[in-house]
């Protein structure tokens, strides 16, 4: 057996032994296997102009759906995301939070900007026509149902958050209620890739 064969054998053996340990670290969020490309969209941005997912390629995108009149789920989620970004420190510059409305009748770009800036001025909102937004929801499997309450209404909607990696792959889904530390944990893994 020559030296090259021995080296090859040892490398193969090392790979087999180290296999499970060397695999990607586990995320706290639910992961998709295999990941798929995150569906593209082009909406109105709360910061003016177009909001296009592909323009954030190279960053990790945190994508959520909600509305500015939401009194329970959205404020909690957005506050959690803001806290997670603060905990990330300088690495937060590589993370973009995108929040798409499920209530286009009330959420225009200006309203979304004002609302989201109260949590974190870097957060971007997306709005558009009802049909455009319905198409985006369908692509992402988001449920949104309008519930009329007297003269007003609310919208019951999916409460989870998607994590999209730097390559634009839909990697994970964080259920509602997870704390900022879980986000920081997963974002650090995705940022390190």
């Amino acid at each position, binding site marked *: 057996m020559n030296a090259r064969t021995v080296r090859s054998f040892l490398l193969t053996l090392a790979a087999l032994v180290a296999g499970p340990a060397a695999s990607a670290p586990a995320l706290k969020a639910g*992961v*998709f296997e*295999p990941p*798929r490309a995150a569906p593209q969209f082009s909406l109105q941005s709360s910061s003016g102009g177009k909001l296009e997912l592909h323009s954030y390629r190279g960053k990790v995108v945190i994508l959520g759906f909600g509305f500015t009149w939401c009194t329970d789920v959205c404020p909690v989620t957005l506050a959690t995301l803001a806290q997670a970004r603060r905990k990330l420190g300088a690495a937060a510059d590589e993370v973009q939070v995108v929040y798409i409305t499920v209530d286009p009748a009330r959420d225009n770009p200006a309203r979304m900007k004002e609302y989201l800036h109260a949590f974190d001025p870097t957060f971007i909102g997306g709005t558009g026509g009802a049909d455009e937004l319905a198409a985006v929801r369908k692509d992402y*499997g988001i449920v949104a149902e309008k519930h009329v309450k007297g003269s007003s209404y609310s919208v019951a909607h999916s409460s989870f958050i998607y994590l999209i990696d730097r390559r634009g792959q839909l990697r994970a889904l964080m259920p509602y209620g997870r704390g900022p530390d879980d986000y920081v944990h997963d974002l650090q893994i995705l940022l390190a890739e």
Partner: protein
Amino acid sequence: MMRSPLRTVLLACGAVGVGVLAWAGFTPIETRTGADREELFEIPRGTWARRMKGEDLGILPDEIRLTLGIRDMLVLRNLDEVPQIFGPTLMMPGQSFRLPFEQAAEYQFACSAHASGQMRVIVYPYPATPWARIMWRARRL
């Protein structure tokens, strides 16, 4: 003094019952690793076609019960030929979704596959006490 047969039977049953409870309460439950912790639900191939024909196929139960350290990983897999809303999310053909739980609590997910529109996942803590072990084993009966 002779014991009545009934009393003997009752005493024997009581002794067996105490023995079973002692076993259920004091025998440790081993924590699991890897795939042994997975609770798997699959959409079989052809589900969409069967639904289109009017069949009412229930794949996910309304309530899923998990236990930390034993079975605490929910795994959903779409083996059908078309994308499906499965559990909380849209899954492509052949795609899996693997969701670990680390905290005992009750979780609600929007799920269009259910008539209620909700899927409930109850995560129990690891059964560390004798009573918890008895309850955990009782739930598995």
